[in-house]
């Protein structure tokens, strides 16, 4: 029982095998892709492993504290930002192996020509509670 973040990047991940961008797909290819993601989430709900799934806009702003009484400083978005997160899925699974298996399946979402994208997903474990007994 451990939670993992399956992280999807717009930029920053190694190149996918089938990396034709979505704006060059046919309508049917986009529909098939969206359906695959929905089915995947629904399947995880059914297996009792789904925790959360979200997609992020590409728009982002950098913000930092600028001292007492001043509004925060904002900057960006920076077009050159190397690492741009596209979204995630959080799963609650019995093993690391299962998290890897699910990420592999998610990476097989169809893209151009209905072929798997083979995109790289980042799998990150959540910190859990400290165990009481450590023997």
């Amino acid at each position, binding site marked *: *029982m451990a*939670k993992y973040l399956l992280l999807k990047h717009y930029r920053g991940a190694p190149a996918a095998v089938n990396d034709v961008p979505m704006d060059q797909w046919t309508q049917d290819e986009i529909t098939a892709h969206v359906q695959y993601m929905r089915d995947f989430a629904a399947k*995880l*709900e*059914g*297996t*009792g*492993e*789904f*925790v*959360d799934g979200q997609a992020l806009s590409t728009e982002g702003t950098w913000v930092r504290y600028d001292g007492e009484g001043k509004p925060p400083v904002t900057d960006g978005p920076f077009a050159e930002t190397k690492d741009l997160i596209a979204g995630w899925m959080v799963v*609650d*699974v*019995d093993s690391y192996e299962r998290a890897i298996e699910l990420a592999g399946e998610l990476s097989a979402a169809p893209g151009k020509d209905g072929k798997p994208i083979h995109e790289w997903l980042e799998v990150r*474990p959540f*910190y*859990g*509670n*400290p*165990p*009481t*007994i*450590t*023997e």
Partner: protein
Amino acid sequence: MDDALIRSLTPAVLGILVRRGADFAAAEDAVQDALIEAVRVWPDDPPRDPKGWLVTAAWRKFLDATRAETARKRREDLVEAEPAPGAASDTDDTLQLYFLCAHPSLTPSSAVALTLRAVGGLTTRQIAQAYLVPEATMAQRISRAKKTVGDVRFDQPGDVATVLRVLYLVFNEGYSGDVDLAAEAIRLTRQLAAAIDHPEVAGLLALMLLHHARRASRTAADGSLVALADQDRSRWDTRMIAEGVEILQAALAKDRLGEFQAQAAIAALHADAPEAGETDWVQIVEWYDELAKLTDSPIVRLNRAVAVGEADGPRAGLKALGELDDSLPRYTAVAAYLHERDGDEQTAARLYVEAAEKASNLAEREYLTRQAARLNRKSPPHR
């Protein structure tokens, strides 16, 4: 009448429904509904016979749920067959439920969820909150688990070891949200110990009590971890320790040593020391040797190295550590600790930083980072 008391009747009521012929999944749903009604109704109108009330309510809910045309025939048969009491005791039913909910065909997370609901009487929402997953996800996990064990015969004997592993998981995962899983695990283990005379069940109960007794002192007010040696021992629950020790001694007297009894013996030796400095580390090493014979867990050998370090000095501890695989969880943290004890603070600080990066939870990461920071202030690292 408190919530825990209402829930303590869960296994007996569920057992009765199943013995009357209801299938496990439907009976479990019906009992769950009856429990919810009890929580609502009893505070204003407490029943004279709580169990009888729950059986009646659950049976009615079961009959309501099987109102479908196809089920009518079967329901009528069941009504005619009712009642069939006396075939088995509540104790047997309770035990069978534990076996069923920890059935080896279930994954650990499914077994935990099903046990908390069908034996513990917790609601799906409470279990979902405790494990920080959406209620719909937990509902599916439980419903799949029920399907998985749907064909298991209720009267088949099970394996106590699988049940103990599930209860251990519930206890050890800590707690979050409204439900205190550690206290719930103790309640369920106590109930199991009452249903079966088995030294390892007693051993696990003793182990839980001995660790639970130290809970208040295990974390500081800000939530940070306090190491065993630094804990305020006046805050330990001596009554709970005494109970744990008594249960353990009775179990050990049966001369059927197991993993949990050995772990409890180690916990008891820690609990027995009025000051950290008075801990009987020599005996603790001996218990780790016993434990290592019972399990091939490398974690046990890692903890043994710590104990050797205390009993025979840090060099001996480092030597024992050197024989283990350095990729073990907490290996680096143990190495850091032993190097500090050996006076090599720079190596210790470096290893604490490394250990912090490998920690599997935030509290441990912070603890290890603080150790590194403490040593670095004493003797700043070379840059």
